[in-house]
């Protein structure tokens, strides 16, 4: 009896020692990883700081200077602000139009590409990897690259930005859409093909009704991202509010009231679309849940 308990006891000690060793090793590995990460962050920060025109430690006290100047100038000429808001409103509409058109085109293109690259739905199953690669490449090319090239060929304006954002959106939405497609039931597709429907009919009538809410939800999210992107591209030469902002900024000190109006418009737009899209996305997913429960 005593013998058994000692063997059991020693086994327990063994197990505990093993466990402790395992834990210690794990802690060591995590510690090393953490140390590497911290070292990378610190050295990276130092490199970036050294390469910057102004240093972090000198600059960070001035962070609020520029906003303060802008606000001061804007409040000085507060009576002109409504006028500026009206002046720049068309540019804002252009920015939103760029985002909306590119999201629409991107969503249509992404939907087609995603169906072509999903097993069971693809028109040419052998070409699935080809379409996947195409989506990867479209996703990888940053918008600014296409926008700058097109601005050179087509001249400045909203179209280069629209094409550039749409191109990227096709790839980005295509990937998300194909994840949605993976979860769609193929039974309607089979049913439709048994009655002789062609590929576009199978997709439009068999797949789209199933995936539409999820597609819409992703497209809304993308729309929000694209508004930001089209504002940024405006700053490098494409049209819209970004371009106006660049002009307003270049007038410098004493003229920041226009910049303030543009900041205000941009901020309000982004927050509005952020809220609206999150409300609708919530409804799209929750509405579906209710239907399923009913």
């Amino acid at each position, binding site marked *: 009896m005593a013998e058994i308990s000692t063997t059991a006891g020693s086994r327990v000690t063994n197990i505990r020692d093993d466990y402790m060793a395992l834990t210690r090793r794990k802690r060591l590995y995590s510690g090393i990883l953490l140390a590497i990460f911290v070292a*990378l962050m610190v050295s990276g920060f130092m490199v970036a700081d050294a*390469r910057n025109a102004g240093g972090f430690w000198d600059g960070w006290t001035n962070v609020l200077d520029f906003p303060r100047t802008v606000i001061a100038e804007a409040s000085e000429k507060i009576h002109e602000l409504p006028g500026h808001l009206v002046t720049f409103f068309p540019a804002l509409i252009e920015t939103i139009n760029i985002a909306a058109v590119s999201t629409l085109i991107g969503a249509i293109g992404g939907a087609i590409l995603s169906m072509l690259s999903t097993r069971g739905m693809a028109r040419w199953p052998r070409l699935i990897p080809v379409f996947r690669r195409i989506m990867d490449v479209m996703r990888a090319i940053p918008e600014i690259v296409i926008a700058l090239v097109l601005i050179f060929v087509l001249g400045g304006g909203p179209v280069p930005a629209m094409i550039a954002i749409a191109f990227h959106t096709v790839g980005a939405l295509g990937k998300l859409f194909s994840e949605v497609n993976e979860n769609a039931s193929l039974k309607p597709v089979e049913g439709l093909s048994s009655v002789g429907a062609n590929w576009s009919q199978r997709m439009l009538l068999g797949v789209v009704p199933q995936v539409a809410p999820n597609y819409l939800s992703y497209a809304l999210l993308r729309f929000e991202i694209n508004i930001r992107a089209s504002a940024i591209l405006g700053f490098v030469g494409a049209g819209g509010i970004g371009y106006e902002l660049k002009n307003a900024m270049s007038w410098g000190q004493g003229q920041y009231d226009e910049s303030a109006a543009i900041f205000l418009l941009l901020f309000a737009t982004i927050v509005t679309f952020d809220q609206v899209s999150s409300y609708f996305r919530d409804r799209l997913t929750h509405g579906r849940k209710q239907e399923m429960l009913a």
Partner: protein
Amino acid sequence: MTMTATNTAAPLKDQAEALFKRKRMISFGMPLLILAYLVYAFFAFDVPGLIRDADPENGRTLIRDSYSYKTHVTRDNRSGEVEVAIEGERKGEYPAGEAPAWVALGETTVITLDGGGIVTFGPEEVSYDIPGYGLVTARPGNGGANATFPTEDLPEWINASKNRVAITTDEGRLTITRRKSELFRYETGWELFFFTLDSPYHGMGPGTLMSRALSGEAGAIWDGFWHNNMWRHADVAWALFETVLMAFLGTFGAAIVSLPLAFLAARNFTPLVVVRQFFRRLFDLFRGVDALIWTIVLARAFGPGPLTGALAILVTDTGSFGKMFSEALENVDGKQIEGLQSTGAKPVQRYRFGVIPQVTPVLLSQILYFFESNTRSATVIGAITGGGIGLLLTQAMITQKDWEEVTYYIVLVVLMVFVMDWFSGWLRRKLIAADESGH
């Protein structure tokens, strides 16, 4: 019985028909609406005007320059000096008395083009023997270009006026003015990509280079390539690194800042509504003031450079991460935390062992996803603040002639994004798998 059945069936039928009607309306109305919007946008963007004003010549130059380069052979008609320079740039100039094989320097410089065309730059006379057309001669001097052509009517690829003659053929382009005669010869490839003309290794094949490298010249060869002043590989590599650095510092910095703040914005960790709402609105503010505005504001304080870009990403992503992290924290399972509490764990320990292990996989995959997409953003932000590959790209585009460099940068940017995509995917799988197997 039957009466009640029909009574209940009739409104049901009406309902179903109304539903069908609505669905039909939607399925036909939506495409029409989209089409109408696109038509509106077509005119709002002034696409017809754009097509009218677009410059296809720019596009052609861009495409041709992206895969070919031109060598300028220039004769100063006053001094009689002949210069051969790649892309007409000083750093691509051949040393005096040296020229590529297709140029024979001398009293009369003879240039042999592909397809049998021969151009001569003589002391008095410039000639271009164009196969299938004839001999064009010119005596640039006081009267202008003084060109004579074999035919009375000039083909459209010859543009001649009193002072200037331009002949554009597929093989090359000859321009004659009173002051200088210049020939551009197009060749496929990226010129001097490995070594510039002043490098001793210019023009050597890979085999020769390999044997030279093995005999101890590897360092010098690498140096010649790396500090090639035409393509500036070292600077480009540094710019790529800077772009990735911006994304890295921005993304992970934002993650570090927003993790503790996310606890304060999560319902189950901060019962105080005021605090919670304050931090939520703070995140909304950071997210709502777009990266563009942050970039401008921060550039004012820190000046142009990679740090500004990194901070702009950091601030914007703090908002996004704060929102996502606090949502993830609201979804944690309370049982683990209760279990730890029952053993007498203190709050910090409860968070460390009860909450963090649960949310790590979600947070990590979000962070890595952002890291990858921020590499792309850093390219754009770099173009605005002046750092990284974005700056090089815009600079090369502004000159409107270095399209081969633009192509090179684009290829590198796409490769960089691919590598980051692959790397973040690999890391995500590695970390999350490791996290799930044993914790």
